């Protein structure tokens, strides 16, 4: 069996295990979602029993599990108790919004983070190096929601001019599609900046450390001995070799962000996966929660799988020991 196929099968098995675990996890949480649906409606027991049936909450846990698996294989994620809509539609919309935020922040964090990391690493031991490291560590240690609230205060209340809530301006009239794009872009600034400020240190430190290590290798000494110009030395020989751990970090960062933007999304009312998960927990919306966790877990697993594949291509020394 080829190592890749093997990895792929493990991926599938993991997904199945997670689906099962998720299902039972959410069904053993105390609290009956039907109580929330039925409260204050003066319903008769027959009507409650009927509702139970409509929402698929009748039958034993095992029966519900089999139904859930069967529906899942058919792409049916269920029906939301609280939003009264198909879960796949709800999660689909939220995922698009989250991916938008995630793409912007990842690009900024990775590109700028690597650039600053290289800047610091290539000036190893100098003041500019230590200043960069200390600054990024300061930002890394700030709580995300707190940075978000601070930016809301600065740009929403003090200075003004930047939207602090939602993804578009309420009741905006757009002349064309570029109008929509620019409105969304303006709403993206603060959430993206919040994520970037806090997370960029991760990439600065990794790149810097990795580069410092590479710069000390014998082949770098050889390269320097050949009289290569500094720029080629750093970028052509150093950075290329130093980026391996950064690739792993980037992939893991993306997968963590699918779930990890919860704080930012709640602070800025950004209608993505984080906010959806947060609201679904409050309303005990099992089908939505199961779908959210499924998407998040699959994102992590697939990202890891991709990291493996990419890594293998980048570094032929990596092999799978079977």
């Amino acid at each position: 069996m080829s190592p890749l196929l093997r990895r792929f099968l493990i991926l599938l098995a993991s997904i199945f295990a997670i689906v099962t675990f998720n299902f039972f996890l959410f069904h053993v949480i105390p609290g009956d979602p039907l109580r929330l649906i039925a409260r204050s409606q003066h319903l008769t027991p027959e009507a409650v029993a009927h509702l139970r049936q409509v929402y698929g909450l009748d039958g034993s846990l095992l029966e519900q599990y089999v139904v859930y698996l069967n529906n899942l294989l058919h792409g049916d994620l269920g029906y939301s108790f609280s939003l009264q809509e198909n879960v796949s539609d709800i999660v689909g919309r939220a995922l698009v919004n989250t991916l938008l935020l995630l793409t912007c922040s990842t690009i900024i964090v990775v590109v700028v983070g690597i650039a600053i990391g290289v800047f610091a690493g290539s000036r190893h031991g100098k003041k500019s190096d230590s200043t960069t490291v200390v600054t990024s560590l300061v930002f890394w240690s700030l709580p995300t929601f707190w940075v978000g609230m601070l930016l809301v205060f600065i740009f929403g209340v003090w200075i003004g001019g930047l939207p602090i809530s939602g993804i578009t301006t309420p009741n905006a009239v757009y002349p064309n599609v570029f109008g929509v794009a620019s409105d969304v872009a303006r709403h993206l600034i603060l959430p993206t900046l919040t994520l970037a400020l806090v997370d960029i240190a991760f990439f600065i430190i990794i790149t810097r450390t990795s580069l410092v290590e590479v710069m000390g290798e014998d082949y770098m000494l050889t390269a320097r001995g050949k009289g290569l110009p500094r720029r080629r030395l750093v970028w052509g020989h150093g950075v290329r070799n130093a980026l391996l751990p950064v690739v792993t970090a980037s992939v893991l960062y993306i997968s963590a962000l699918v779930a990890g933007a919860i704080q930012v999304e709640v602070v800025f009312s950004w209608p993505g996966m984080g906010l959806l998960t947060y609201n679904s927990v409050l309303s005990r919306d099992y089908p939505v929660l199961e779908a959210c966790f499924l998407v998040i877990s699959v994102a992590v697993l697939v990202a890891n799988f991709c990291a493996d594949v990419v890594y293998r291509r980048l570094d032929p020394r990596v092999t799978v020991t079977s």
Partner: protein
Amino acid sequence: MHTEPQPDSPEGARLSRRTLLRTALLTGAFLATPGALAACAPATTNSVSTNKLLRVGWKSDIDTFNPLTTVTTEAVEVQSLIYDTLMAYGLDLKPEASLATAAKQDGATITYTLRDGVTWHDGTAFTADDVIYTFELIAKNELGVNAQYLVDLDTAKATDPKTVVLTFKKPQAFDPGLVVPILPKHIWGTKTPDEVSKFPNADPIGTGPFTFKERKQGQSVALSRNEKWWGTKPAAAGASWQVYTNDDLMAQALKNGEVDIIPQVPPTVFAGLKDTKDLTSVSLDSFSFHHIGFNVSADKKSKGNPLLLDKKVRQALGYALDRKQVAEIAYAGYASPGGSILMPSFGDFYWEPQGDEVIDNNPDKANALLDSAGYPMGPDGVRQASDGTPLKFRIIAIATTSTDVRTAQLFQASAAKVGIKLDLSNVDSDTMASTVYNTAGPDWDIFVWGWDSGVNDPSYMLGVPLTSQIGGNNDVFYSNPSYDALYDQQATELDRTKRIALVKQMQQMFYDDSAYLVAVYIKKLQSYKNTAWTGWTETPGGMIFNFTRDNYLKVTPKGS
């Protein structure tokens, strides 16, 4: 594995003054980036349509446009502008004509005369068939919050194209025509009841003063004025509702003019808005109270403390509780002391205890009552029953509802003064519901929670503690045959004066039985931008977010 932190370089090990300075500079540069980004953002020609648009800010999204499955007040509010009812509440909260120009009640029948020339938003003509379809659909399948008013419905018939007669099994004091939104048969009639239960109704078609424009889930809903509406057209060309996940963002949006009115201002924010320029902030009577409930289930399966089945213990706790203190401390004055199960907003239906009837803030009387009932003070300051069981009870409150937690704490202190010990635990709202409503064996003693009357008629609130509502809304498992009998009597009493007498008798009975200690009546805090719209009528229950939609229809843009 432990690793010693290793300085990268001698300089890196210590923060020199210069490094610190550079760190500060770089931090500043980081913070300045968004400003620069904003400046670089392309100049847009987008405009925000504020022209005669009535904009509301609130904290949760609507759940659905389907009036037969909705459970949120937000959705009912938006739907009330899309769908008409046969009769409607005016700004004085009295019934007036709507889709029906008249309703005549005669014994167990109600006859509605339908309005001429009404069309649905899609242009189809509105007919008596739509009315009959709606009432039958709800009654036969027990769909939605309004099914409870149609349990006695026998038949719905059209005697001619403009007259609909509802025949009930017994006379109805409450006219369900006031609350049932009329649905278009040509859209809903093709669905089975189960399909109706899962119908998102994403593009709602009604006969109401506004038509659906757009919905962004979790963010906003917008409606446009129905230019073909049968009534006097509203001045607002549209209405929109924007969701804010954060109280401060919402208040800021009102100050900035992003929204025109906030119908539910949190008390913490209200103080800040009260003195803001261009804002009018009002504190109105509401249809909500918060109460302390006792588990009085007589069922053998109940795991509640049986000492609470003694009315004297409950009354003693009622005498111990200082409702004024709760209103002032837990609610910062944005509530008034409670009493009856009906809120004062019910007007002439409301009963207020007088003189000796008052069970409130009287520790001496509480002590005397417990002494005479055979609960002497124990050595540890906790009273005991004759068999030596201490008067110790569990009390639960929803952790995130800080006012309830504070109420429980104040109650705890008051009860301790008369020798009753309360152990408080905080739960989340869902655990609260499943614990309290656990019909298989309610395992709790006392809770702090609240009720909103879903309808402007005493029947809803009075109906909560009915024996038949055990397993339904009856949160304290109260059961009193005389109370149940009075309920049935008032529900079929068409003479208003006689009905008021019955309703007051029920309130007095329930108050004296002390299964509830209604702690406070909540104030509805609303705030609006007085430079945007004028002509708001301050109605008990709220200018909007109330049983009447008329403020949406009657306000006019400032300066027009």
